[in-house]
């Protein structure tokens, strides 16, 4: 799903984060159980549980004992702010590095983004 160097449980956690960010998973909505995840992705349930545990640690999910896992009320806002912080480092910097390498200057990029002549 993502950077294939990352362990499967990280990929599961990232997938859930993306669903929260995009609004596919709503706040206070229950997510599938570790067993459902395991059966769907054909993975060991401990792997899915590890991904969930990471999201609980990060405050994206919360646990209701005996019922299951739910999306935290502030999860989306929290994730948005985290991703905004990383946006320039993770998305813009690599693009600029590539642009420098192939000789595209910043003006050209800005013009492209603003829909001007290419």
């Amino acid at each position, binding site marked *: 799903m993502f950077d*294939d160097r990352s362990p499967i449980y990280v990929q599961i956690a990232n997938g859930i984060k993306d669903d929260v960010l995009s609004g596919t998973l709503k706040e206070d909505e229950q997510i599938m159980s570790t067993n459902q995840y395991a059966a769907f992705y054909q993975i060991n*349930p401990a792997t899915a549980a590890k991904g969930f545990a990471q999201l609980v640690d990060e405050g994206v999910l919360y646990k209701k004992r005996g019922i299951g896992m739910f999306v935290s009320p502030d999860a989306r806002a929290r994730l948005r702010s985290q991703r905004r912080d990383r946006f320039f480092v993770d998305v813009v910097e690599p693009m600029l590095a590539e642009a420098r390498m192939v000789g595209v200057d910043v003006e050209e990029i800005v013009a492209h983004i603003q829909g001007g002549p290419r």
Partner: protein
Amino acid sequence: MISLRDLTVSYGDTIAVDGLTLDLAPGKIYGLLGRNGSGKTSLLSVLAAYRKASGGTVAIGGVDPFENAALMRDTVFIRDSLDVSEQDRICRVLELAGRLRPCWDAGYADRLVDVFELHRRKRVSALSRGQRSSLGVILGLAARAPLTILDEAYLGMDAAARKAFYRELLADYLAHPRTIILSTHLIEEVADLLEQVIVIDHGRLVVHEDTDTFRARGVAVTGPAGAVEAFVAGRTVLSQQSLGGVREATLYGALDDADAARARAAGLTLAPVGVQDLFIHLTSGADDGTRRTEALR
């Protein structure tokens, strides 16, 4: 808990398992990985009490399984030979298993016969290699034994049958958690199902850890030869190859974020090494004839 202490299994002068110490917590799916002749089947045979250890101790829940009838009812060991009467029809084999196995689920066994497209009236002797394996999987899963050991249970199965096997194994484990030990050569196919991997080589334990942890240990570093050389200095290199001025080195040992950033800054590309490749690197001979695993001890 399964505890092996300094376990040794020898056949005359041949040492199949060589002073192996291992603890397995209950309720997990384990993958036992090893090359042909590495001692997998000998190790599993002792666990299942099919043979006695030559030295060291085996304890399942604190008890030696050898000649222990109660423990044996709770242990199923499916191996190449199937251990059923060749003249019996499949329906008879399943009926017998039902009488011997306290947790046998006849309805589930019946459903699996359909999943694997076997004919109940067929005799064991008339089954193809893949069909024999399917019967073994049915005997192994429907027994619902607290300790389920499947020794290369997929032999001769085609891709569709193997997929059915993995799907049924996981589904039944989710519904009825128990300790499952799978020995396999088809590592990549099952890696995601395994909570932990156990790698043995020459009868000795090489690795026992979470599959995720194991997977993270292998990394392939590619880039200009000089930069690769500088980066890998002081690390465990499992293999290297060159293409013109480009070199690829396979490293053993997880890289932290700082290492990864340093590698990228030096113009190097990092890629994962699959569990299977990592296993091959760990258990194949090095150019100087020694096993790479020796460098890791």
